[in-house]
């Protein structure tokens, strides 16, 4: 004869045992699905292991995320939406295209009164673009990549006032190649796509 307390006790034990059995079953199933992956039962469906049997794995091994500069509208979301801090998206300078302008629309704010390197004149919020005199009237602009946050202000300025030699790209030395890129998910221009690993960059004009 069981009383109510015994009944509840058994119910709790039964629930816990069922939960444990289900969890074990799922982990065993995932481990088997993940092939020889060292992660084994801790598989997170990342698909990154060379021996992974997941369908995503092939896509992962052969492609990486990249941003198409012809579609990019320089909305600034790459700076905030990446899982990396700072963002894995950074500006790249296509030197073959650059006009080496003194009045650089990617370097200077539109309302600047003086063409100088003073911080208040710079368009970049982190001063990631360095201006260096070459010869009259040419200046070279280089990117200090650790400072670049991928906000695209310089890209928009260069495109509006110059020839568009500043372009955003996903840098693969930083990108962790997420299954679902958090920037791509929110990109209003649908500018992100997977590209072959042997052609990981989509720079224009070269």
């Amino acid at each position, binding site marked *: 004869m069981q009383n109510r307390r015994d009944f509840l006790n058994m119910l709790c034990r039964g629930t816990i045992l069922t939960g444990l059995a289900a969890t074990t079953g799922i982990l065993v199933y995932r481990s088997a699905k993940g092939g020889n992956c060292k992660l084994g039962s801790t598989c997170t469906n990342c698909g990154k292991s060379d021996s992974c049997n997941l369908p995503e794995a092939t896509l992962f091994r052969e492609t990486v995320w990249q941003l198409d500069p012809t579609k990019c509208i*320089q*909305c*600034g*979301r790459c*700076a*905030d*939406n990446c899982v990396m801090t700072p963002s894995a998206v950074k500006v790249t300078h296509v030197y073959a295209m650059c*006009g080496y*302008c*003194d*009045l*650089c*629309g990617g370097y*200077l*704010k*539109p*309302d*600047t*009164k003086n*063409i100088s390197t003073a911080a208040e004149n710079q*368009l970049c*919020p982190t001063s990631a673009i360095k201006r260096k005199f070459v010869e*009259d*009237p040419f200046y070279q602009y280089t990117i200090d990549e650790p400072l670049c*946050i991928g*906000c*695209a*202000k310089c890209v*928009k*300025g260069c495109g*509006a*006032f*110059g*020839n568009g030699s500043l372009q955003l790209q996903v840098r693969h030395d930083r990108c962790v190649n997420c299954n679902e890129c958090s920037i791509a998910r*929110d990109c*209003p221009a649908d500018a992100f796509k997977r590209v072959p690993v042997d052609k990981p960059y989509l720079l224009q004009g070269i």
Partner: protein
Amino acid sequence: MKQKIIIISALLLLLALVAFMVKDFFFNKPGDNNPYKFELENIRKGDTSMTAYSETGQIKTSLAEIHGIATDNSGNIYVAGKDGVEVFDASGIAVNKFKIEGIAQSIAVVDNDNLFLGMLDHIEIFDKNGKQISKWNSCGEDAVITSIAVKGNDVFAADAGQKVVYRFDLKGNLINKIGLKDPATGVPGFIIPSPYFDLGIRKDGNLWVVNPGRHSFEKYAFDGTLLTSWTKASMAMEGFCGCCNPSNFAFLNDSLFVTSEKAIERVKVYKTDGSFVCVVATPDQFEEGTKGLDLAVDNQNRILVLDPAKMLVRIFELKKQ
């Protein structure tokens, strides 16, 4: 009673929390408060208080492409472009049209009504009825003749491809080159990143050439001596913006410069010393990305703007007030 008040307060707090979460999830769109947003719309609108001209007319052209505009002493308007030249009277009525072989990038009209056309790498001369009078030799395979001006027996041609101004006689013989970089004489050399390179001769006989990469106007003697220059590099309305501007210019009242720019499309007036006078047309009056707004001024001091994006000659006149 006390317990009821606590429950009601807790429910209200819960409702407020749910409302906040709903707003945060569904109504806060990413980018609404983007600190990195770079607005160029205000620049494109321009400051209308500086605008002293208004658009009073438009002339529709019928050529496939339009690149150059010029006027004669009678007020006729000449438009040159792909495979043809079109002529309008001052009221905008088409009075003539003739075919040419190729694309005319520039046009100049001289007193006897001969037309000089810059045909990519060489110059061709036509009479006003469209009969070809002569065809000069090529200036080189890289030549792009973007502007022509004629004064007496001298013909000046701006070559954007080879970054030089040629001085020819009326038969097409080269007399000298102008603007080649020479530190000894202080000639800085032309910086021309894009194929927009204009020149003009004022009625006082001075040759003025745009140096777009330096945002400058340079005044040369006919032998190539640099006489003076002025520079106005700025993103603001008072200056020339971008990598290389102005793209085109014309003289107004024999003393003022009317200039047009690309990137931020705008037409403005400057004094001979480079001081800003007023705005003729603001960027929002043009389609974004319009390039090559060639200019001319007619005998009524109307400013004629060639708009290759809309295929129009747009007429601007000084506002009455």
